């Protein structure tokens, strides 16, 4: 069954719009809203010299800055970035590294305006994070790969240029001259281009682990040695063109696969997480400003709205509004009162406050969680084609060994010739690049369908999905509330009073009421007071009103409005599913066994789950990050959908982990796949792509196997010379290349309709 076509983004028109939205991303929304985007330039942003010292890198007369940003969803986001140079005075050399998703720019020393750039990126909803570590090594490695690929291509093309006349019949002294020229051009391919294969082959030899690069390197060296020997001894069995072309094809297919994957999502680290580099604090009575790494136990740390708390501490100020989504997954605000523990990872929502530091940043529970992720990466499993390649190579070596043992009547020259022909013809190059190519194709298709695949081997794990587990808050629910069916109807007068009281609040209840009732004229509220954790109080037209939310009862949130201490209205609210979730769940229930694994209160999980058709035994609430991981081990779902920092361990543990749109950066980094929205219905396309890619792989591997068996047997029996093998090998490679690019009927359909 094919998925429904999705309308295009109203701004860029290049990407599908998010479910229930006109735009594909927040960047497009911002750009559409500020279509003369110059006005969005935050001229008033205050620049901080300490920030320049901390995150800037001096390079001669210039200071260079780098920022991690979220992956750009569309061309319009790029257009937004281009305008930075026009908007921020003195900004130079603006560059965006797609692979690492890093934006870099420079200013003349003394004229740095990094905070202004940062504010603009925030406007585009790109979640900028300053990059303080100098990754020149990474950049150099990227350039090295480009250089190797480009030059190998050039060498291969030039060698082929000199081999064409020989194939066309050139003979005599000119043939020798052309062969020697080929050899000269081939030398850098042999000594430099193939180095990565030699290195991996040597490593796998030393570690006694067969990798597909080991046979590749051996076949390449054997073919090269044989050709050089033939050239030096006046023979004409020379295969420099095939060997160089083969190496180029392998390098190219691997580079395609790397480009189709994300590189920027490195393992979560504290450096990535704490986006504010400098904090104000008081140490021994002296106020100072320091980076978060230098905050010590006993310091009095000053926190402001929007800060991510880097340390554990006790609140010294009377109260502070925070969210602790990293622990519970729930983004709703909570009030903390004087003396209560404020844990690292907590986000300050409103006001400012002071905290007495009890644990420095690197000793907190939050730091331990991130550390466990760094050490607890998924074990690298060899792919099926790698195992198949290894088996092919072993059979190749076995055949050559048999030839040596039982074919001595043929003479050493003939044995060497046949061995080389077997190695060249049966070299698993087809297997080596057909599978990465089909995966790259699947990744591109998934991207068009709203998924960003990070783990190249995830496709085989998506073939037999039976059990799916979801986090609740942020994944299935969008943090919005709706009225329960038996909640009383409210007339316009009371709506106006409630909305006036909630006017300044950003609490999800206030947002939900505004969303449900729409804009109404606001009444004047005097003596308005926010009651921490409970609600708001104020006077309207001489009467005292209080709006108070009580904890969830019967799965509902009760909101009471009282006038002069007498209850007048009681509203009943319920957790709302994110757009499209209810319909997707309804369809999923027919095909899969579904679970909820949530950090939210059990009764809220039950209320939501039962309302959406989950069996009660499959609903699990009140789970912290570690318990979520244990629950994943117990239930063993095939896929886990999550969004928060509290899902990190579970995401790492699940066979396939998918982070939904608006997931925390850490969840994005830990997941195998990112979803661009919460439209779970699109997962059907993902499963279809996985199935079709598996079919394509099977077809390719079947072709490769048949070719290897037939050609290998022919080479072994002397029917194919090394020259014939060198001609057959690229033909087989190009056949598989064509087969992969052609794909299957369903893949072509998906591509056409994406």
């Amino acid at each position, binding site marked *: 069954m094919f998925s429904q076509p999705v309308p295009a983004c109203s701004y860029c028109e290049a990407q599908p719009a998010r479910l229930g939205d006109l735009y594909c991303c927040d960047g497009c929304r911002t750009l559409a809203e500020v279509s003369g985007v110059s006005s969005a330039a935050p001229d008033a942003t205050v620049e901080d010299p300490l920030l320049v010292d901390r995150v800037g890198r001096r390079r001669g007369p210039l200071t260079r800055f780098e920022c991690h940003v979220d992956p750009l969803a569309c061309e319009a986001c*790029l257009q937004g970035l281009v305008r930075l140079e*026009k*908007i921020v*005075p003195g900004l130079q050399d603006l*560059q965006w590294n797609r692979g690492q998703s890093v934006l870099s720019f420079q200013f003349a020393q003394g004229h740095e305006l990094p905070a202004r750039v940062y504010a603009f990126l925030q406007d585009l909803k790109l979640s900028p994070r300053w990059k303080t570590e100098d990754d020149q090594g990474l950049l150099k490695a990227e*350039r090295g790969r480009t250089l190797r690929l480009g*030059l190998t291509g050039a060498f291969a093309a030039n060698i082929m240029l000199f081999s064409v006349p020989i194939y066309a019949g050139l003979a005599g002294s*000119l043939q020798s001259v052309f062969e020697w020229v080929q050899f000269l051009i081939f030398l850098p391919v042999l000594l430099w281009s193939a180095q990565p294969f030699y290195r991996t082959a040597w490593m796998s030899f030393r570690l006694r682990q067969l990798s597909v690069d080991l046979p590749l390197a051996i076949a390449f060296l054997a073919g090269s040695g044989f050709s050089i020997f033939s050239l030096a001894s006046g023979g004409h069995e020379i295969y420099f063109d095939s060997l160089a072309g083969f190496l180029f094809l392998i390098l190219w297919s691997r580079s395609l696969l790397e480009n189709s994957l994300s590189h920027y999502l490195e393992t979560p680290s504290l450096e990535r997480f704490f986006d504010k580099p400098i904090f104000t604090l008081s140490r021994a009575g002296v106020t100072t400003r320091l980076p978060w790494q230098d905050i010590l136990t006993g310091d009095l740390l000053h926190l402001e709205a929007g800060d991510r708390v880097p340390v554990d501490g006790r609140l010294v100020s009377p109260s502070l509004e925070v969210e602790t989504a990293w622990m519970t997954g729930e983004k709703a605000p909570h009030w903390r009162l004087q003396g209560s523990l404020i844990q690292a990872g907590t986000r300050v929502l409103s006001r400012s406050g002071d905290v007495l530091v009890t644990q420095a940043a690197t000793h907190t529970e939050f730091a331990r969680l991130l550390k466990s992720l760094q050490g607890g990466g998924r074990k690298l499993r060899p792919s099926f084609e790698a195992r198949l390649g290894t088996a092919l190579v072993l059979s190749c070596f076995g055949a050559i060994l048999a030839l040596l043992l039982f074919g001595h009547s043929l003479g050493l020259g003939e044995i060497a010739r046949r061995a080389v022909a077997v190695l060249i013809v049966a070299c698993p190059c087809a297997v080596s690049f057909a599978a990465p190519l089909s995966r790259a194709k699947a990744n591109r298709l998934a991207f068009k369908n709203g998924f960003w695949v990070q783990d190249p081997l995830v496709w085989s794990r998506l073939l037999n999905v039976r059990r799916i587990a979801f986090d609740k808050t942020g994944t299935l629910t969008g943090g919005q509330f709706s009225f329960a069916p038996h909640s009383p109807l409210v007339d316009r007068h009371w709506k106006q009073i409630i909305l006036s009281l909630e006017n300044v609040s950003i609490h999800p209840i206030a947002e939900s009421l505004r969303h449900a009732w729409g804009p109404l004229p606001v009444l004047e509220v005097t003596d308005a007071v926010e009651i921490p954790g409970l609600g708001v109080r104020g006077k309207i037209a001489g009467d005292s009103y209080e709006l108070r939310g009580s904890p969830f009862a019967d799965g509902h949130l009760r909101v009471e409005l009282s006038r002069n201490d007498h209850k007048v209205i009681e509203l009943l609210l319920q957790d709302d599913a994110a757009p499209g979730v209810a319909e997707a769940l309804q369809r999923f229930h027919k095909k899969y066994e579904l679970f909820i694994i949530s950090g939210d209160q059990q009764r809220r999980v039950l209320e939501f789950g039962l309302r959406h058709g989950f069996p009660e035994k499959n609903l699990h609430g009140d789970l912290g990050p570690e318990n979520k991981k244990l629950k994943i081990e117990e239930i063993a779902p095939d896929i886990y959908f999550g969004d928060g920092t509290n899902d990190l361990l579970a995401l790492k543990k699940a066979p396939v982990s998918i982070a939904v749109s608006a997931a925390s950066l850490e969840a994005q980094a830990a997941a195998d796949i990112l979803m661009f929205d919460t439209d779970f219905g699109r997962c059907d396309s993902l499963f279809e792509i996985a199935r079709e890619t598996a079919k394509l792989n099977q077809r390719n591997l079947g072709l490769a196997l048949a070719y290897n068996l037939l050609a290998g047997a022919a080479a072994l029996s002397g029917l194919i010379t090394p020259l014939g093998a060198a001609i057959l090998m690229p033909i087989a490679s190009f056949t598989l290349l064509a087969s992969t690019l052609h794909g299957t009927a369903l893949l072509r359909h998906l591509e056409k309709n994406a």
Partner: protein
Amino acid sequence: MNILLVLVPLALLLSLSFMIAFLWATRSGQWDDLDLTPMKILDETPAKEGNTHEEHD
């Protein structure tokens, strides 16, 4: 056929010069950003008043 003695080294020299150009382009970061640079050329948004690089040069 003697012309080949000139043409072959010439062809090699030509391809060598392209390779050197490619080497220079890669080492100096010409391929580092293939997205923003072409867009900068096409972007017609007027610069904000006083926003020119020359002011710091």
